[in-house]
């Protein structure tokens, strides 16, 4: 009666809390393995004992779906998020993203590889800023590490998820990138092909109000927002 | 009985030998680089010769014709190495009993207590080799080889790394080995004194070939067998202990000639062998009087050999056995020494070095 969840590492705070609530309510244990979406997806390809997969990224979910690794009809977009421009320390918000990025290093997740970086690059490209700032971008292997660069003041600006910015007191949000400047940011969730019945209950719980409350509190938006 | 026939090339050096080693100590004798260690290693199986056959009694250890080659651990030989090669992580006791672990059951091995007593290593048993003196180490190494119940003992210059005092301490143990233990011994040495004292049989080597082999008494009294230089020349005689005198002198008798030595440990009636170095012997035409030398052996000159140098080597036949004397060419002329001349060999009693007084058995057993 243990449900094993493979989830993108950035969901740790939320899922730890939700899993604890679920166990208390339903009696089933929930074990969550947090790692990068790509590592988790490969492990599921290799037959990992995961019941539920929550990716930070549609590409890897698409790949698993195409390979028949997830249970048909169980995939849905669980959460949405937005990316924001942040600054080190107390800096007032601004509408002028171009001016805010005029100088200094910009910390992002890997812009070709990690979802938050991919979205950020798309937004900057859309706004015609990418070519100008490209050489000042420093890329971290995950979005948390990018956040850390800004929090420590190593980079004055950074692009991270709104949910990350919300909980780091050493940074302030300058602006939120408009949703149309990048592909929709969604966290698709699905049952794996050989998930047990309890897993479906947990996936439902994730979509239910108790879980929703936790996600909302931590700044995640609904999938359609 | 060990029989060896070997051909082997290594680098510039070619070994080509064949010999048999009867019971007792067979000494391989020859200058550095003459191939002694190569032979011993081939017998031990640590080196595979190009061609050859090695057998101990009925068991063939190596036969390159039939392709037979027993690995070292199945040869049952006790190898005493020059540097001891004791196992540093084991106690003396564990070193001693190491070979026992592997000795075939039912093989008559030496009694450990007897070996330990014989080698005087009882007090060392629980110590580790690292803190033993060089002489103690070699005694343990001998014991270790013996207790492995070997069919043959190999000893490659077991005394070479020791100083004179240590050598003198170990030599008697090899004598006891020769006389009290039935295992044949192949012993490498380039010390004439060691050879004279220990050898039953001598195999003299030079540049990979055997120059002379035979019973020790014969080979040693041939003044031409001197691979390590003329200064080592000497003859070996056998003498029986007659009595111990009060003033610390032991009287012996060799072929009816009395011989006086400072006290030797053997009891009256026992036979011991003496090496009389040629350079310790004076010759006189007339029996000398009023001289501090106690030993005067009458004899007839057999042969006088002179070379380019100022020295000459004179062989005498005496009732006590062959005796060699090294004198100057000038004395040969002055005294008129020549074949057939009667004269007296004068040996100071103390001129017989203690390491040259050995226990006999070897010579008499040929």
């Amino acid at each position, binding site marked *: 009666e243990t449900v*094993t969840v*493979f989830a993108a*590492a*950035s969901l*740790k*705070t939320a899922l730890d809390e939700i899993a604890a609530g679920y166990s208390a309510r339903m009696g089933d244990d929930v*074990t*969550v*393995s*947090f*790692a990068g979406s790509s*590592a*988790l997806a*490969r*492990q599921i*390809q*290799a*037959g*990992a*004992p995961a019941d539920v997969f929550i990716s930070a990224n549609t590409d890897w979910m698409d790949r698993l779906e195409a390979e028949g690794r997830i249970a048909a009809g169980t995939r849905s977009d669980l959460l949405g998020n937005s990316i924001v421009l942040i600054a080190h320390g107390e800096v007032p918000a601004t509408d002028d993203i171009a001016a805010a990025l005029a100088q200094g290093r910009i910390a992002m997740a890997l812009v070709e590889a990690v979802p938050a970086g991919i979205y950020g690059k798309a937004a900057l490209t859309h706004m015609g800023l990418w070519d100008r700032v490209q050489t000042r971008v420093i890329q971290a292997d*995950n979005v*948390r590490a990018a956040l850390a660069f800004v929090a420590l003041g190593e980079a004055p600006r950074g692009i991270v998820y709104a949910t*990350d910015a919300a*909980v*780091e007191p050493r940074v302030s949000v300058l602006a939120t990138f408009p949703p149309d400047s990048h592909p929709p940011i969604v966290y698709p969730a699905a049952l794996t092909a050989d998930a047990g019945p309890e897993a479906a209950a947990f996936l439902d719980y994730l979509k239910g109000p108790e879980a929703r409350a936790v996600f909302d509190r931590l700044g995640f938006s609904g999938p359609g927002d | 009985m060990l029989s060896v026939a070997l051909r082997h090339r290594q680098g510039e050096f070619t070994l080509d030998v064949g010999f048999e080693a009867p019971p007792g100590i067979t000494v391989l004798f020859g200058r550095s680089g003459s191939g002694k260690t190569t032979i011993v290693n081939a017998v*031990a*199986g*640590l080196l595979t010769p190009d061609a050859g056959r090695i057998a101990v009694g009925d068991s063939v250890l190596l036969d390159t014709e039939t392709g037979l080659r027993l*690995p*070292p*651990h*199945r*040869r*049952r*030989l*006790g*190898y005493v*190495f020059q*540097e001891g*090669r*004791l*196992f*540093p*992580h*084991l106690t003396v006791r564990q070193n001693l009993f*190491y*070979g026992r*672990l*592997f*000795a075939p059951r039912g093989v008559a091995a030496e009694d450990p207590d007897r070996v330990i007593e014989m080698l005087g290593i009882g007090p060392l048993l629980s110590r*580790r*080799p*690292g*803190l033993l003196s060089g002489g103690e180490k070699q005694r343990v190494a001998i014991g*270790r*080889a013996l207790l*492995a119940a070997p069919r043959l003992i*190999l000893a490659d210059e077991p005394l070479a790394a020791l100083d004179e005092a240590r050598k003198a301490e170990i030599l008697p143990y090899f004598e006891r080995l020769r006389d009290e233990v039935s295992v044949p011994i192949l012993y490498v040495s380039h010390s004439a004194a060691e050879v004279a004292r220990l050898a039953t049989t001598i195999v003299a080597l030079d540049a990979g070939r055997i120059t002379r082999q035979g019973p020790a008494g014969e080979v040693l009294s041939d003044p031409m067998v001197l691979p390590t230089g003329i200064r080592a020349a000497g003859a070996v005689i056998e003498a029986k202990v007659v009595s111990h005198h009060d003033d610390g002198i032991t009287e012996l008798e060799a072929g009816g000639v009395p011989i006086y030595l400072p006290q030797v440990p053997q009891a009256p009636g026992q036979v011991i062998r003496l090496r009389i170095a040629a350079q310790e012997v004076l010759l006189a035409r007339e029996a000398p009087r009023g001289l501090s030398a106690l030993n005067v052996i009458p004899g007839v000159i057999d042969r006088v050999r002179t070379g380019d140098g100022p020295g000459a080597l004179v062989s005498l036949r005496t009732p006590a056995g062959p005796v060699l004397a090294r004198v100057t060419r000038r004395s040969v002329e002055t005294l008129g020494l020549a074949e057939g001349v009667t004269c007296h060999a004068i040996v100071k009693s103390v001129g017989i070095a203690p390491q040259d007084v050995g226990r006999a058995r070897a010579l008499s057993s040929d």
Partner: protein
Amino acid sequence: MAWLGPEEWSAVALSLRVSTWAMLVSLPLGVLTAYALARWRFPGKQLLNGLVHLPLILPPVVTGYLLLLGFGTQGPIGRALEKIGITFAFHWTGAALAAGIMAFPLMVRAIRLSIEAVDPRLEQAAATLGAPKPWVFVTVTLPMILPGILAGAILAFAKAMGEFGATITFVSNIPGQTRTIPSAIYAFLQVPGGEGPAMRLVVVSVVVAMAALLASEAISTRVARRVAGT
């Protein structure tokens, strides 16, 4: 250490288990490999040498990925082993395998050096006393290289305590099963405010590995003296 939560304790306990097994199981193989590299001549020796060093050279993620391909439930080796009841995939044993492989080059190097320092003439002496090769190894070589084995083992243990990249890539990060101290640290670092627990785990990890290292230095010195025969 009341300041460690149950999750952290579980990671510490798991890491100790994983590292200990990684060390113990790889030890015989490490000794054998080191012996082969030090003493034998065979074709492909340099290849073996290279292979042993591979985990040192490859980014750990790649090692983990290759392990996943080979030892996963779908991998050829994984499937073969599954049949005889051995599972590595997503199991603590897999974490031990990953840690063991990553630590292997260090272990082999340490042991190899100690074997090269053993005088082969002592082994010859043992052979002349009647000891067959395996016995020579057990009674002579092995006792003499104990300090090197000890050093290699502890080094491997310490390295295993710190292994992260290959482990998380191969066996994921499953609490109680494959979430070792480094994986737990990683997870904590993903969480706002997680630096605190992460640093506590770092301290535990460092203390354990240091204690092992210092103990090994001390024991090595003592054993070395004993082996020197004094």
